[in-house]
């Protein structure tokens, strides 16, 4: 009797263990009592609308089947989102409570994970599911070897947007070729020429030349410039910042010089806005901004149509043709099993090819699943775009370049380490400040009637460079981030 009882107990316990082990069977979700998932994102405009539509679609289909309701909350910019998340994670007074899912860059993910607030998505994604993602994209969300803290949602790269109408007008006059725009040196030279050409158009007014070039993300410019020149300024492997003076000097000179002398500019919120206002002819910016590139610009209170030329990201001469690869993924907060699982269910659904392509192609993002690139729908969509409205055609052009960069050329995403996001900010803000200061100084000098060379000399690029480095060093020291100089 007693032996039989033991056997039965053994059998039952084995059964329970087996049941518990079998994946996919057990769920914390209950369709009758759906779990509410709050999603914070930084998308705006059409991306926001597209996300909200996707969330609606999810809620009424898979979500309602499995018992997940997602509430998408726009948190404005990346910076605002990250502040809100950091505040929430740190439990700052008056901060909102942590969302269940949020858009997140790797650097931030590391920080939040350091607070123990992130969930390892490996628990919710099988190997088979994970291999569907582009390995490189997935890797950028993987930390400490295995922990998958970020699921890639969409990716983007940067390229050179050109108001072809304006460029052609200038090119026809200057005899410059668009191929000049392949290098930063070429860009700089073309911008210089453009400035002079426009300045010459109003002979009565000296120094009213127009800017040709804009840089949307200065940080990316610094990082990818370093990379092109063989330096990883954010050395994730060694968890330090590498300040290579020669490389940094080249980068500094191009930007600082361009900005100071008005070759480069940044007026509106985004460089695409500057294009729309007719303040710029070209800029380097994210492929995800493709839709924002206008088909017309406002001129004299009227709409003036323009053409669009998409070019690859410029390369410092002698550098490798690297372009940035970026894009926030989404992280899931360490919360309750049902919320974590609900979030994972949403992310799986959202990054599945059909939804992912729809969302990505709203503005020019790249899907994250390898299969998407072979997907007929994706290809058809691209073709539809290339024969669609002007905006659609613009997007198609961006995809052409972006896909070329992703598939054929090198794209680079710095390996993050703790504080590396601050490094980005430091690099960007310090350089932008330097540029702004340079421009203001230059304006004064211009009024004094100094030539461009004289102005440059007066500005003392070497000294300014050292100043920049000093700012960088001090900020890194302040943040306690290690750096080496070379």
């Amino acid at each position: 009797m007693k032996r039989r009882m033991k056997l039965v107990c053994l059998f039952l316990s084995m059964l329970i263990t087996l049941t518990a082990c079998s994946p996919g069977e057990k769920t914390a979700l209950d369709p009758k009592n759906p779990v509410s998932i709050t999603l914070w994102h930084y998308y705006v405009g059409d991306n926001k609308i597209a996300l909200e539509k996707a969330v609606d679609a999810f809620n009424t289909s898979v979500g309602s089947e499995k018992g997940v309701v997602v509430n998408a909350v726009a948190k404005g910019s990346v910076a605002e989102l990250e502040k809100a998340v950091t505040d929430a994670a740190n439990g700052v007074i008056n901060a909102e409570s942590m969302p269940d899912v949020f858009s997140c860059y790797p650097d931030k993910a590391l920080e939040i994970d350091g607070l123990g607030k992130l969930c390892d998505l490996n628990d919710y994604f099988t190997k088979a599911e994970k291999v569907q993602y582009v390995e490189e994209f997935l890797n950028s969300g993987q930390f400490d070897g295995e922990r998958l803290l970020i699921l890639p949602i969409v990716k983007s790269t940067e390229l050179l947007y050109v108001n072809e109408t304006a460029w052609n007008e200038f090119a026809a006059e200057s005899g410059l070729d668009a191929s000049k725009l392949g290098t930063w040196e070429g860009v700089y030279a073309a911008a210089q020429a453009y400035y002079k050409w426009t300045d010459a158009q109003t002979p009565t007014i000296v120094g009213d030349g127009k800017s040709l070039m804009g840089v949307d993300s200065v940080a990316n410019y610094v990082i990818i410039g370093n990379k092109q020149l063989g330096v990883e300024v954010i050395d994730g492997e060694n968890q330090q910042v590498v300040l290579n003076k020669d490389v940094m000097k080249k980068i500094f000179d191009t930007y600082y010089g361009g900005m100071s002398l008005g070759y480069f500019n940044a007026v509106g919120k985004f460089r695409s806005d500057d294009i729309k206002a007719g303040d710029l002819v070209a800029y380097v910016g994210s492929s995800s901004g493709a839709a924002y590139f206008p088909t017309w610009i406002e001129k004299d209170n009227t709409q003036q149509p323009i053409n669009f030329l998409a070019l690859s990201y410029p390369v410092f001469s002698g550098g490798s043709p690297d372009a940035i690869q970026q894009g926030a993924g989404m992280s899931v907060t360490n919360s309750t099993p049902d919320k974590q699982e609900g979030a994972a269910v949403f992310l799986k659904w959202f990054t599945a090819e059909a939804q992912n392509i729809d969302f990505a192609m709203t503005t020019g993002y790249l899907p994250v699943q390898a299969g998407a690139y072979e997907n007929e729908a994706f290809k058809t969509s691209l073709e539809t775009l290339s024969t669609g409205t002007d905006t659609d055609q613009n997007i198609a052009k961006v995809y052409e370049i972006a896909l070329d960069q992703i598939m054929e050329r090198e794209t680079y995403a710095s390996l993050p380490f703790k504080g590396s996001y601050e490094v980005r900010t430091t690099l960007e803000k310090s350089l932008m400040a330097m540029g702004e200061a340079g421009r203001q100084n230059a304006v004064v000098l211009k009024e004094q009637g100094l030539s461009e060379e004289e102005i440059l000399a007066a500005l003392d690029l070497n000294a300014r460079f050292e100043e920049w480095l000093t700012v960088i060093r001090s900020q890194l020291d302040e943040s306690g981030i290690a750096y080496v100089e070379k």
Partner: protein
Amino acid sequence: MKKTWTLRRQLNILLALIVTFQSVALLSALWVSQVFFMLDAEAVRLLNNTTETRKKTFDASVGQTIANVADETEQLNAALILLAQQQGSAPNALYLNDSAYNETALRASQSLVTILKENQVTGAFFVLNGSNSNKGDPAAHSAVYIRNSTPDSGVTSNYLMEIGPIAVSKQYTMATSIRWDLDLRRENSAGAFDFYEKPIWASSQFKNAEMERYGYWSPPRDLLQDNQQVVTYTLPILDENGNGYGVMGIEIDMPYFSQQYLPDSDLLYHNSFYVITQMIDQTLNLDWFIPSGVLAETYLKSGEQLTLTKGQDKGIFETRLGALGTMVASVQKLKVYSDNSPFADQNWTLACLVPKDVLRENSVSVREKLIYSILMTTVLAFGAVFVLVYFFTRKISRLSKYVRELSPYDEIYFKPTGMREVDDLTAAVQLLNQRLMNVSKTTSKILELSLLPIGGYEVLENSQVILTDFVYWLLHLEPGSVITLDDWSRYYLQLTKKPVAGQENIYEYYDAYTEKQMWLRILEAKSPNGLVGVIQDVTDDIEEKRRLTNELDYDALTGLFSNTALKRETTRRIAEKPNEIGAMIFIDLDNLKYINDTFGHDVGDRLIIRASEIFRYFEQFGGIVSRISGDEFAIYLHDCGNQEELRQKIKNLYPYGKSFLLTTPDGNENQICFSAGVAWYPQDASNVLELLKRSDFAMYEAKHKEKGCLFEFNREYYQQMSYLLENREAINRLLDEQLIRFAFQPIVDLKSGEIMGYEALMRPLLENFKNPREILAVAAAQSKLAQLERMIILMAFQTLDKHAEELGERKIFINSIPSQRLNDEDHLFVEMQYRQYFKQVIIEVTEEDSRNIELLSEKIRFIKNNGMAIALDDFGSGYSNEIRILSLLPDIIKIDMEMIQGINNNVDKQNLVANLVNFCHNKGVKVVAEGIEASNDLATVIAMGIDYAQGFYLGQPMFEFAAIDPELQNEIRELQKKAIQNSLEE
């Protein structure tokens, strides 16, 4: 039989009933109190409260927004009127001039940004009556449309310009949208531009009214064709005359609307949702609606008319909604318009819909849980009852099981149960058992000590057989070994195999083990649960009986048949051949008494043996030779030819017997003499007892008439003398039981006429005897005279003693047997006991036999010595030596009635009596005249001087002491006087 249940079951049922009753009572109480439905009401109230709170929050928030927007619009109106004046144009023409428009746009943007900053809206816009960039296009309206994707953050950096001049974008460093445009285009479809037209229309209707009155809420629509449904609130831009030339508005997109104004967090119940829509007459008109979330979007169908039915509480309705089933709706009217607004009839209504079953979930759940709890509690209570009752009654069950399984041989020991009553009971039983065992032991011991070979067995229905040690011993089994029912049936068969014929329950049993023949008595009786039996070894009894039977059949001394054997065998032979002739010979040895007296009993025995050898003579004829008793023998011959032949054979006995001699110790060889009588079958008698009697009588005759001879039965003689024989037994009985009584005949004193005494006359109480003479005769024949004498004397004294007072001084005459006298012991007894009566007693004796005169005189002397008187009875009846007797000097002489009767006319008798009287008087002897039966005889004897008289004339014998008749007394006195006179005369 009354059904019995175990204590355990009864307790179980009782307690289970209590538990059940309690549970049922609890359920009933809950049902009656309707507690659950209170929960339902509470849920509805809660729902109503929540919805009302939401409405208030919404109203407050929206009201504030309206106020802000109205305020801002009024400021803008004023600013634009001023601007138009500066530009030298009318406000409604501001769009026509580029710079004027730029100014206008920038000023409007300022208001829009302010609105966006201050209010929780997702967009704000400003639309003019015409297009600056497309002046010829009537469908185009110059507009500024700014959206804020993060209304809650208060950050302006996320503002996105959908429509407007780039100057505005630059002014506020505001990104432009993908669909950035300069104009808002009027759609052709009807109502699509209501947000623009309605407020302006309203302003035209109510001139100079407060701004809020013109406000218009447009239902959700995709205003910018970007897939974003938005709700707008617009106010007119008015010129100084109050004519509208544009609108200023806010936009709330659907996601934000639901997040901000209809938050899920508000909802108390799952599967519930808010919706804002138009409500008309209890119907939710879903032509447009603002859903709170996914559920509302899923289950509410655009264009549907959702009819509500009024519920119990105010603002509570019910409706059916697809898969969600019956919904409870809490409805609150929203205040988005002033009461005086022309659009107030749009009835914006907030409804919160909850599935009815969800609303009642709590109460259902509580109900279920409560019922489950009660059921569980009940089940647990049952379990507890069973377990507790089990443990409670286990001891008692064990006890009863223990008792059931007890063997009668076991000593009882009860384990204590801890229950005092039960333990007391068991202790009592234990004590009883102890006593019973003691009794049983004692009984066994007694049985054992009694040496009775007896044993018992009990066959129980439950196939158990219990044996006592004796039975084990009998069957040669180990004592105490277990005997099954099968074993026992085998043993039983073996024991009862040979029943003894004619003797119930006795079985012959051969014990093969000891090779002994045994007899057993086996008795069985039913017992309540089987049967019990007793086995007794009766071997000894049987053998003894057989031996006794043998002894009874044969005479021990002679080896002849016994008396009983003779009777049995004779009866048998007669029965076998009743038609043959038989002869019963009764023989009595003549001189056994002499031999015994002379030589002792040993020689007497030898004589008997010797005699028996003679009588065996008849054995050759098949005779049954038996010794009846002492010296009496009887032989029966049957079927030995005819009577003559048989007689001859019998007669030959004497010659045959001559050769048998008995040598006595004195050396003489004596012939053996015997007398014999023969009675014939069937001539004299037909059964053995009669034959014996008749032959005995014949022998008796021989003995009396001719000793040593054989007499045949003589019927005439027998009839004459039979009473002597027949009453042989009777006399013994009479003597043993003193079956006599006394009659008293008065004896009268002839001088005084008084009764001087009574003669006690013996009267037999047995019918066998007709008179005292026969008693005397039989007693004499049976040599019982001594006993008779003793009885008469003793009884006479007893009677005297008893009637002493009645008798007074009078005498008693007692008849005594002359040849007998009391032995010394009896004499002593009488003397001790009755001495005082001696002087009253007169002993009457008769002289019958001259041989006994010596004996008589001795007796008389003996009586006289005792002070008693002697009377000589029947004097003159013919005995020869009367005179001689007189010499014995008796006190009284009673003259026989032969001499008295007829004396009056018989001179001989007169002479004889006169002489006798004379003689007696001379000697001092009184004279009694017996048999006075006539008056003249009385007169004669009185005249002759006789002293006393008795006779029928004077008084018959009676069983009482009769008094004398007074007449008779007078007669006697007269006669006496006469006699005295006569003698004086002489």
